[in-house]
């Protein structure tokens, strides 16, 4: 049997900003799919607000969709190119049978993510990458969830746009009292966003801890090499070379 993730135990508190970091193949995406009820664990349990999501068929998970929403890395492939922005953002309201004035709600959400209400009439391809990510965030916020799960939401963005989107994440998580699960391969981004972080490697969580503690005193060898490998502007200007980065990683990776 192939185990994509193994013996993972985690808990995320209400209102927490929780990061999951790891390199490709570490099991981050599998863990994320389990958390969101998109896949079932072979054994073990996922509880959201005390309710198990593992033992219910997908159609019974409407309550989960209302409480937990997802934002993906690539807004181009997660936004239907043939749908207008209004319909994209209103889609969770429609599929969950949430009534009310959808047009007003969409307008409000667009404002919340920093887009013009006029955007509702346009199509995804008429927006830049950063704006499309704002549209994805607006859609995720539509059913008024408690938990936002983001999968590499800024990995495809340039630094200036990344900063804009990270600021938006800050604003909405604080402003709406959300619980955030933020999955990324980029430890610097996770450090900026999250209070606590789990480090994954080969399907296991090798270390969990408060973000700053984990940076200052990584407890696991893998975390140590991950932290040591991150290029850093200030450290580089102070003389840290590529050789130093590689030495921190150790032989053969």
């Amino acid at each position: 049997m192939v185990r994509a993730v193994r013996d993972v135990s985690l808990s995320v508190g209400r209102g927490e900003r929780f990061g999951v970091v790891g390199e490709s193949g570490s099991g981050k995406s599998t863990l994320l799919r389990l958390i969101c009820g998109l896949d079932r664990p072979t054994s073990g349990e996922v509880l959201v607000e005390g309710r198990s999501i593992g033992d219910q068929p997908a159609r019974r998970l409407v309550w989960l969709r209302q409480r937990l929403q997802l934002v993906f890395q690539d807004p181009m492939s997660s936004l239907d190119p043939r749908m207008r922005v209004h319909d994209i953002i209103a889609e969770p309201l429609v599929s969950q049978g949430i009534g009310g004035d959808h047009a007003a709600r969409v307008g409000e959400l667009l404002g919340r993510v920093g887009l013009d209400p006029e955007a509702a009439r346009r199509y995804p391809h008429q927006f830049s990458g950063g704006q499309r990510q704002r549209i994805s965030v607006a859609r995720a916020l539509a059913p008024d969830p408690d938990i936002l799960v983001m999968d590499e939401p800024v990995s495809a963005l340039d630094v200036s746009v990344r900063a804009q989107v990270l600021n938006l994440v800050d604003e909405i998580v604080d402003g709406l009292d959300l619980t955030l699960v933020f999955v990324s391969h980029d430890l610097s981004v996770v450090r900026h966003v999250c209070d606590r972080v789990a480090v994954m490697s080969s399907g296991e969580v090798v270390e969990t801890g408060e973000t700053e503690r984990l940076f200052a005193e990584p407890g696991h060898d893998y975390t140590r090499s991950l932290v040591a490998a991150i290029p850093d502007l200030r450290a580089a200007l102070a003389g840290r070379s590529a050789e130093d980065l590689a030495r921190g990683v150790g032989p053969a990776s």
Partner: protein
Amino acid sequence: MSGAGDRTVLAVEGLDVGTGHTPLLRDVTFSIARGERVGLIGESGSGKSLTALAVMGLLGEGLHARGDVRLSGRTPATRNLLEVGEREMARLRGDAVTMVFQEPMTALNPTMRVGAQVTEVMRIHGTRDTAGARARAVELLDQVGLPDPAHLARSYPHELSGGQRQRVVLAIALANDPALLICDEPTTALDVTVQATVLDLVVRGVQERDAAMLFITHDLAVVATVCERVLVMYGGRIVEAGPVGEVFADPRHRYTQGLIGASDLAGERGRRQRAALPTIQGTVPPAGRFPDGCVFRSRCAHATDECATLPGWTPRREGDGPGQGSAPGEVGRAAGYACFHPAGGAA
């Protein structure tokens, strides 16, 4: 050409690239000396890759280049590479000038064993005979840190990991001891631990050969780690250039300042106190939609009416007039910026 010292390997002057109606690169001027590692940074759509492709003579159909691009170092300086024919360019590519792209599979032949691909580049350029090239290929694969290179040489690209493939590409790029290595986002698709190793190998590879390097990336921390000098590009123009330590510690152009602010996730004292990150407003416009005058003025918080005219090049240090740089590699616009209302400069 301006006073290129003996050590100049690449001299680019007044390079313009465009389609029939849309200018994509404007007046790109820089040079790189032997043994010098120069970074080229900017957001996507700034023109970094086009700069590399123009130097390599790989601009696609429909793109026109004007200006002067010369390569020296190993042989006497070439003629203007924008004017030599494809046959002469093909002789230089893979030999005197080589390139590593972001995606290693674009450079590898999927149906050929990797050892044979390293061997081939030496045979094509006649730098070694067959037996010599085979032995050298294994040495090169060893130098880029591949385990059991004699065995690995018999693998096909698909049998290797992304990081291993990029090492093979690097071995091919270094095989003929190029005078100039161009890397375009070579580690962007790699995991951070693999990136660290590959960056180390790239730097070692060029240092051992005293080769010049142009290193393209959107990651400022990577440039600061790998390069000595940096060129900042926006809207198809080089808007600032200078030693990495000076440009990053004391940026003068408002675009450079904005880029550094937006990338600085760690903040002044390690962790940021959850203050909003500084951002640059808006996004990079599509080609042909950059404003006249200063290309950055549609996003710049410091723009004035004056910025509607093209800002000239101001040397970072007085006396370093255009074309008067004295240190190695300091030809023309080695250290300066093009901005009417520059930041910093206090120190």
